[in-house]
């Protein structure tokens, strides 16, 4: 069983578009959307939800007003400013439990906080696990880990040989949770100065966790000079640049219709994605040879 995580550092570079294409092109795979903050993959893969579970990834401090004597000790000790005017702000509470410990009246308890939902679904290309973090909730990293656990459970009973993980933007906890223990990271970047800046940071993260990394440039022809700079950066770092996808209006056309571009187009972008998948799958499955 191999795991491929698609990341970008920067948002909007085409991670989900590529993940969906790979979901169509790869065989015997499980598809996982680990962008629990802004999950979008379901908008083009149209999964049928088989089961849904609530996820409690965090605890939250809850106060019993009747027991509270307004001594203010909880407010004083909370490092997250989550207690103001003796009221607990559930968006700021990290569930550390220090207030529970300090309260002389035992008026505060820690309770499970439902932070999101996990969906076990089926698409015409295979099983898909996705989730949704409740708006404004924390612990997206834990939810990502749980989503991945669900995928692993499904993989145990089947003949799957690949898990494709669609990552989230950034370099923080959800991204790290989607990268941990993966076999290969594919970074999707775009030839803009911000794309290059974010690429450098996300490659640093993959390096930090010692994960083999490949890079592809989406819409490479919108700025050839920056594309060249990305190429040079990859060479310097000894990272394989495995794909150059041209700007092609058919990609956004397919997206607008909620379709996967390789299903409906044979244009320049679709062709480049076919070639990209050939290289990526070879790296995944034949890297030991």
């Amino acid at each position, binding site marked *: 069983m191999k795991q491929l995580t698609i990341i970008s550092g*920067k948002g909007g570079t085409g991670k989900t578009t590529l993940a969906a294409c790979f979901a169509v092109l790869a065989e015997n795979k499980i598809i996982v959307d680990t962008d629990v*903050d802004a999950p979008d993959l379901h908008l083009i893969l149209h999964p049928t939800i088989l089961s849904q579970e609530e996820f409690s990834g965090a605890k939250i401090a809850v106060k019993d007003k009747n027991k509270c004597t307004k001594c203010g000790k909880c407010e004083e000790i909370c490092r*997250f400013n989550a207690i103001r005017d003796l009221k607990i702000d559930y968006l700021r509470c990290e569930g550390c439990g*220090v207030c529970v410990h300090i309260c002389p009246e035992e008026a505060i308890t820690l309770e499970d906080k439902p932070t999101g939902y996990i969906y076990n679904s089926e698409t015409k290309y295979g099983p898909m696990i996705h989730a949704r973090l409740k708006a*404004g909730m924390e612990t997206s990293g834990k939810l990502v880990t749980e989503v991945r656990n669900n995928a692993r459970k499904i993989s145990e009973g089947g003949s799957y040989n690949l898990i494709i993980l669609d990552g989230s933007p950034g370099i923080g906890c959800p991204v790290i949770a989607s990268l941990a223990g993966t076999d290969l990271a594919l970074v999707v970047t775009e030839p*803009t*100065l911000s794309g290059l*800046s974010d690429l450098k940071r996300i490659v*640093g993260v993959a390096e930090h966790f010692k994960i083999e990394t490949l890079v592809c440039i989406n819409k490479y022809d919108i700025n050839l000079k920056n594309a060249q700079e990305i190429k040079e950066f990859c060479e310097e770092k000894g990272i394989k640049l495995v794909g150059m996808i041209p700007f092609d209006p058919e990609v956004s056309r397919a997206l607008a219709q909620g379709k996967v571009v390789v299903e409906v187009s044979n244009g320049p972008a679709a062709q480049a994605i076919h070639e990209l998948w050939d290289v990526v799958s070879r790296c995944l499955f034949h890297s030991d040879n």
Partner: protein
Amino acid sequence: MIISVASGKGGTGKTTIATNLALSLKNCQYVDCDVEEPNGYIFLRPQIQESKTVYLPVPHVHLEKCSFCGKCAEFCQFNALAVAKENILIFPELCHGCGGCMVICPNSAITEENRSIGVVEKGKASHLEFVQGKLNIGEPMATPVVRAVKDEIDEEKIAILDASPGTGCPVIETISGSDYCLLITEPTPFGLYDLQLAVEVMRNLRIPFGIIVNRWGEGDSQLEDYCLKENIPILLKIPFSRDIAMLYSKGIPLVQAHPHWKANFLKLFEGIEERLGEATHHH
């Protein structure tokens, strides 16, 4: 006044709006709260004058006082401590810095030491005041760095806060306390779906907000229908244009290449002031 710029989805143009709005106003502070991937500096090219390390307190166990009772590890909600036979293992990346282990230890064997998790940089970009935060590579917790960045907000100025994509904890930390929030979206099914999540957050936090549509003209009317139905104002539309995309790719602010856009951003700001019912003298 604090105006934050957010979006459910990445790559919609938050930084474009935040930097151009900041460049169009006087007495303004641009604050990049996307500490995972700060991009504002690319467009504003600031001169950094000051740099502060952001620390998070992590436990330090004095083994000579420790009785290995395990109460600290038992208390820690984040599994940042583990008690081995005659040693305590600390996992700094998991520690939220709540100080609970120190409070709970019956032998006073725990003190705290500072661990660097990022940096806050301050400087000037022509007439603008510039602040950004950078999370160290490999660190999972962005929120404390966002908090440190927000400590630099100058209340005498109009602060424009550039948030990270999504609706997770760093975004909540960024936008809480804002007077107004601009949600940037694009007219695609992805844009609309993620916008709906962001709207839910705005309503939970009770922050007044309006919408800016970027790459206007490439999609259908679904987005406008949604805004109309939900009674959400669309404050500005930025057309889908190869020229604007080209400027972005080179890191050139729109108002610098096309000064007439300044008027649009100024109008946007005045519109926000009006909505907040405080047409003041900021400019």
